[in-house]
């Protein structure tokens, strides 16, 4: 399982990449592996106002439906429409092409509750 540098991580196994005042959100390699083959992703609507840690959508794998949480709050500015036709992209490229949504960050201070790569790595190792 990898957790690239340059990203922040949540205990719910999402990652956050900061690009100026926009954050890109996805799920980690550990999360996609745990879920198994992903068959459907329900994303928040563009324009939706999300609160940190809220359940904002759903990721369905063959086995189960899982809530999708947001690691930080803000307004959704873009969602990954490629996942409509190819939800398995999340399995194949969890940190790349399988990103889920982008939001305009509401509060920079929220990031302090997220984990860095090595702390997230430790969390994953402990969950095994």
């Amino acid at each position, binding site marked *: 399982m990898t957790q690239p540098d340059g990203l922040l991580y949540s205990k719910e196994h999402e990652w956050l990449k900061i690009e100026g005042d926009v954050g890109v959100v996805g799920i980690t390699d550990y999360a996609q592996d745990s879920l*198994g*083959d992903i*068959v459907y992703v*329900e994303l928040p609507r563009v324009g939706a106002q999300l609160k940190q840690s809220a359940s904002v959508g759903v990721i*369905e794998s*063959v086995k189960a*439906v899982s809530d999708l949480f947001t690691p930080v709050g803000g307004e959704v500015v873009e969602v990954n429409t490629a996942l409509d036709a190819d939800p398995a992209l999340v399995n194949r490229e969890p940190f790349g092409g399988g990103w889920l949504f982008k939001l305009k960050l509401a509060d920079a201070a929220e990031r302090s509750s997220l984990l860095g790569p090595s702390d997230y790595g430790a969390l994953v190792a402990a969950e095994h």
Partner: protein
Amino acid sequence: MRRTALYDEHVALGGRMVPFAGFEMPVQYAGILREHDAVRKRAGLFDLSHMAQFELRGPGVAAWADALTINHVATMKLGQARYNIFTNEGGGAHDDVLFYRLEAERWLLVVNAGNAQKMWEYLRNRPAPGVTLTNHHGEAALIAVQGPHACAIVSSLLASAAERSSLEAMKYYTCAPGEIGGVPLLFGRTGYTGEDGFELFLPGEEAPAVWRRILAAGAEHGLEPAGLGARDMLRLEAGMPLYGFELAEDLSPLAGGQRWAVKFEKPDFTGKAALVAQAAEDDYDRIVALSLSGRVPARSGYRVFRAGEAVGEVRSASLGPSVGAYIATALVRKSASALGTALQIEVRGALHDASVVALPFYRRS
């Protein structure tokens, strides 16, 4: 939590182990979709040793079993396998099973893992003259090879041309003794995937070596180990019931879609009167097959509507890769059950279209 004789093999193959019916079983190895694809196109290898195997011996078995089940037992020929259901007095199902007639007075009865204890207690509490029961649950192993290449793979493990052609000539739903590498076993040309294939019954201590032989022989055919996740997807596409979903203590074979197996001409059997009455009244909720129109998956327990009225609930549901759609079974009232009926499934508060279709969803070519 118990383990089958093949536990170490699963772990070595990267199997993701989960608790199932009191056993640690592999839900997947490389991935459910990939394993499903392997079975449909090449072959998959399954450990089903968590299922219970009972041996039934004696001159009294046929009549005794006929009195407890819906389908004919006494008329089974030597080397025949037959699907059957043990019913309760209300016509509901205790379990759905396979009988294999090995000798005139010797049967193998394969029972669902989740019902192993219930069924053993049930049968043991009904002693009859000329009936001896032995419980091999946990000691006997069951390995299934399923898929278009299954026959070639299993055949390649047999020692002589005569054995190979006998195996290849076996008809569907027959069984015969044989051996692999000197290990005596029973072959059944049966399965739970809708593909051709074999189920191998053998002593647990011989299972690891035979499993590995099959994997080795299957490598050039693209055989892959397949877990319970793929198994469920395959059986649903093939229109096969799963106890607890399409059959239950309160869900009879009539309601569950297994009317074909109810032999009303049998003089009597447990639950016959209730089934006769149910058939005559014909007002019961029943299992239908649904094909979903969109991309949103249904899940067990989701409510089913027709023109705004709640008519039932989803039982089994899965992606059907061989069907190109999400598929499900649902228990709905009779008025919502005709082929072609347009229904809606409630998913997280929104309604999604589905229609009643005929089973099976998938048939092998």
